[in-house]
């Protein structure tokens, strides 16, 4: 049984710290989510555990972390559904060659550079229980991800969603995320099948079959919900609850198939009908509790697993700098080069690269999976978390530096220039 007093105290402290940090970061023109991510780190051994170890041990006893983790994982399951919900394949199709090349390069460049880096880091930060292939592929997937929701939030706040830069960035980020999650699913299957009696081909076959059932079977049912919504202007509580049950069932299916709960919830979101009012309606139903209550718990749990003290000595800090350099060169440089080659002006191309370099919450989700399946070590996890924080933090100021004209546009409210800002976690500023 959880110690309810401690659990409620933890939730209260996490919410207060996250709200305060989020508000402070908004004052320096950062999305709220960046402040909340920092707040999570502050609550962990990197700060609170370091300056007040006894209070930290009282507030976050090891025996209580399982419950905190469980709550935060429920939040991430719903969050991934909202991320999938925000991805619209039609937007991807409408971008043409420029977006196709840019999005593919923005995946392959960081991915390939990360695998080169893996050659250097594997003997130094991993151990021989992890196969090099898994390590390298994970590093590639983790570096090629883009925080689609954070990106959308930044673009929406700056009224850039309808600009060429904005539309290409959104399309590329969506392609990156879908690809990144597919690669990650493969890595999880690869790793789990090594300790399972089920053949990897059986698992992969099961995953493909599940995806086909979702796309050609469940999607039809979901379209009926959209039709009911159109006819009645809303959905009954029963239908909303049923959608939530479908999300959880889908998550359970992918977990049973040997990948991860989050793939199921992401896929469920991705196959939902994309009529803007319908999407907005579902976002309104799900995002408030998720982003104000459950996601801060995820940030806190991530912070509790992040120990910057593990990065000690000049050698370890050099690894950390290398990770940051490779991540930025691959993502920012790759996207910039590809968009410039396809005719985008140099400054705008650099702006696009900067936007694509935003990793945010999506990176934390992936890194937590990596640490859970032990494909990355605690020190590497801490370095990658720092890389995620820095690349997300640098987006707004660098964008302001590179594209001052675009960034000087008056920020708009949620109603913005499009009927429904497809911004999962918008309430949290993510």
């Amino acid at each position, binding site marked *: 049984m959880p110690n309810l007093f401690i659990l409620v105290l933890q939730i209260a402290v996490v919410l207060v710290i996250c709200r305060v940090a989020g508000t402070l970061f908004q004052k320096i023109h950062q999305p709220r989510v960046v402040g909340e991510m920092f707040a999570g780190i502050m609550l962990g051994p990197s700060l609170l555990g370091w300056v007040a170890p006894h209070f930290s041990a009282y507030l976050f006893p090891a025996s209580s972390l399982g419950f905190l983790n469980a709550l935060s994982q429920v939040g991430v399951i719903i969050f991934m559904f909202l991320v999938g919900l925000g991805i619209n394949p039609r937007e991807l199709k409408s971008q043409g060659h420029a977006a196709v090349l840019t999005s593919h390069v923005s995946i392959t*460049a960081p991915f*390939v550079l990360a695998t080169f880096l893996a050659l250097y880091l594997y003997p130094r930060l991993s151990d*021989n229980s992890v196969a090099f292939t898994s390590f390298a592929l994970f590093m590639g997937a983790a570096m090629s991800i883009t925080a689609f929701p954070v990106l959308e939030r930044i673009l929406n706040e700056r009224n850039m969603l309808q600009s060429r830069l904005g539309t290409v960035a959104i399309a590329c980020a969506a392609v990156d995320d879908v690809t990144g999650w597919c690669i990650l699913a493969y890595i999880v299957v690869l790793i789990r099948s*090594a300790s399972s009696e089920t053949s990897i081909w059986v698992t992969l076959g099961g995953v493909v079959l599940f995806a086909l059932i979702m796309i050609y079977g469940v999607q039809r049912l979901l379209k009926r919900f959209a039709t009911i919504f159109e006819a009645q202007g809303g959905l009954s509580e029963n239908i909303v609850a049923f959608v939530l049950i479908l999300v959880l069932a889908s998550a359970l299916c992918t977990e049973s198939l040997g990948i991860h709960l989050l793939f199921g919830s992401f896929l469920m979101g991705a196959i939902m009908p994309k009529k803007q009012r319908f999407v907005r309606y579902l976002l309104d139903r799900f995002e408030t509790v998720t982003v104000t209550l459950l996601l801060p718990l995820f940030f806190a749990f991530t912070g509790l697993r992040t120990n910057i003290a593990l990065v000690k000595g000049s050698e370890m800090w050099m690894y950390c700098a290398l990770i940051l350099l490779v991540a930025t060169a691959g993502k920012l440089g790759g996207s910039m080069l590809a968009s410039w080659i396809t005719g985008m002006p140099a400054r705008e191309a650099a702006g696009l690269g900067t936007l694509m370099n935003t990793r945010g919450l999506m990176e934390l989700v992936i890194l937590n999976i990596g640490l859970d399946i032990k494909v990355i070590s*605690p020190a590497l996890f801490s370095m990658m978390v720092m890389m995620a924080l820095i690349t997300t933090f640098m987006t707004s100021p660098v964008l302001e530096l590179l594209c001052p004209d675009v960034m000087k546009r008056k920020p708009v409210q949620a109603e913005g220039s499009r009927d429904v800002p497809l911004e999962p976690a918008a309430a949290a500023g993510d």
Partner: protein
Amino acid sequence: MPHSNRNFAIAYVFLVALPITGLVGVLRSGRNLKAPTSVDGAWKVRTGAATGDPSSCPSLLALYADAPVTISQSGTNFGISSGQTGGTGVIEGVRLHASLRPSGGAPLANCAGGGSVSLAATLDADTNPRVMSGILSVAGCPSCESVEFQAVRQNPTQKKGAQ
């Protein structure tokens, strides 16, 4: 083929297809790399330490008698914890060196080394579950006797992912 399409195709080959070919090469060459031996996980330690009052320096090693030890590894570095003690260490080949200190500190303050314990061990990497054996000694206490120990890893070694 229109001019723009040709440019697109050329750019795609150079920026996407070629790097992917390079990726295959990297994955192949990486298979020959050797990472440090894995010691991560929970270990069950058996020592020949005499039981006694662990707050006295010579009996300090009684704290580690049959204690569960957890190792959290990051490459050649690792964190080690056992009950109220914790520390860091390094693995070089099959040799481990670590230093443990009491987290609370108070009961062991009468030791010259502040209750710090040194661990030196050799790993038998061929066994599964993995076994290590070595010596525990109290730092800064020449009169304290070192104690031999043997530890067995609780979780069996399994390679994570294909080679």
